[in-house]
């Protein structure tokens, strides 16, 4: 859900460079956290689930302007750190095929990784106490809300002027929220606004952005929570061991 689509060349280099550095640090941490034996046994699952996420994004849901991300599902089935790696893999492939800018990839990975980490740990904590369906749904809703807030935070932090819009995809089957953003100081030679005026317009645009993105975000969160819960309970019905073995991993890790 929380996925920035900012065209390349319109955001200040300092922000996407920070994004990339943050991503590099997070990935280094993730690779260190994955034990050697886990690599051999989990890497096929990592590949298959990343591919699955890519595919699920392309399932047309009708005219709802959102698509599934399944980050929390991946984290539940892979564990938190492999989940972070899956987020990176998916985002790199998306960026390569021109889905969202390549420059904001670092920021996107950071936002979505927060979803994976939070979602996983919440699920692991709730799993022992409540029913699996409830644990999954809660973890998904909380993680997605948090990542949505994080995205809004990043957007606000970068102080970029924003324009949010609802846009149908070209192929008309799927649609999603999009940001178009730019960096005012970049074209300072052409922009002759007073500081106060500029700050004012940034405020209004951020407000407008929040007002637009939150309702759509909520619909997306609900759909995603339904999908992740349905999928988890389906696995529980057909192959419970696939989730159970994750439990053992958790116990070992904690």
């Amino acid at each position, binding site marked *: 859900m929380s996925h920035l689509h900012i065209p390349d060349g319109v955001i200040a280099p300092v922000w996407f460079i920070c994004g990339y550095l943050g991503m590099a640090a997070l990935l280094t941490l993730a690779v260190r956290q994955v034990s050697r034996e886990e690599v051999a046994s989990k890497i096929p699952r990592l590949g*298959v689930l990343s591919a699955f996420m890519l595919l699920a994004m392309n399932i*047309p849901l009708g005219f709802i302007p959102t698509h599934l991300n399944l980050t929390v599902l991946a984290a539940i089935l892979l564990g938190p750190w492999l989940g972070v790696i899956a987020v990176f893999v998916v985002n790199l492939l998306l960026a390569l095929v021109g889905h969202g800018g390549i420059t904001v990839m670092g920021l996107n990975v950071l936002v979505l990784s927060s979803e994976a980490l939070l979602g996983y740990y919440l699920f692991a904590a709730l799993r022992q106490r409540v029913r699996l369906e409830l644990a999954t749904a809660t973890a998904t809703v909380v993680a997605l809300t948090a990542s949505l807030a994080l995205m809004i935070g990043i957007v606000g932090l970068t102080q970029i002027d924003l324009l949010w*819009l609802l846009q149908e995809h070209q192929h008309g089957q799927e649609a999603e929220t999009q940001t178009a953003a730019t960096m005012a100081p970049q074209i300072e030679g052409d922009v002759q606004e007073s500081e106060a005026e500029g700050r004012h317009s940034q405020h209004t645009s951020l407000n407008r952005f929040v007002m637009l993105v939150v309702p759509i975000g909520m619909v997306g969160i609900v759909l995603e929570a339904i999908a992740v819960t349905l999928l988890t309970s389906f696995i529980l019905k057909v192959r419970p061991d696939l989730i159970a073995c994750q439990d053992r991993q958790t116990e070992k890790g904690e």
Partner: protein
Amino acid sequence: MHLADIDYLAFQGNSLWHKASALSKLFFTLVIICVVVISRELPLLLFTLALTLALLVLAGVPLRSFCHLLLYPALFASIFAFSRLGTSWVGAALVLVKSLTAATALILLITTTCIPAIFGCLRLLLPPLIADALLLTYRSFFTLLGQLGSFMTALRLKGGYAPLKIMLNLRSAAGALGVLLIHSLEASERMHRVLVLRGYRPGIIFAGKWYRPTWYDLGPVLGALVVLFGAVLV
């Protein structure tokens, strides 16, 4: 999904640009992205855009089937740009041209370069675990894509998909995804067995042949130099 069409174009294309190595084309793309990010000179950006578009056409990429990927970022940029119409025409044009140029450069890269070859270069920057994950994702994507296609066909034939019925679609999609998920998790278990039998160590999925210089590399390298030269000039 575009990924499948793009992959096929890269795979079957035979242009000079296709024949150049992934490394030289990555260099070219990187130069363009840098110019897009840093430059504020409209003429330079327009020239770069014209160059990448011309290369795209020369590489035999059917523009019509990929124009949505180009227009897509341009559309958002342009709406933003026009919202600032009162302040500056140049600023608006800059935003538009920048986004178009970056998108064209990326599409030029991926429609002419097989994705494994790109991964082969990225592998030098990435930890082996992640490089392998990328390759396995790529392999799995195409296996799963075929299966998902069959599911969607079955759904359509049994009346399980209608653009306007959200609940119907959601129910059908959940069913298809659930089955596909189980299939893919089981496939991953079998892949794990294969990896064990064939002796997997992180980082060995891709062979060492990620770069062999050829004369074809001159194209992207010269292209990048022309753009750089232009950037220095203005």
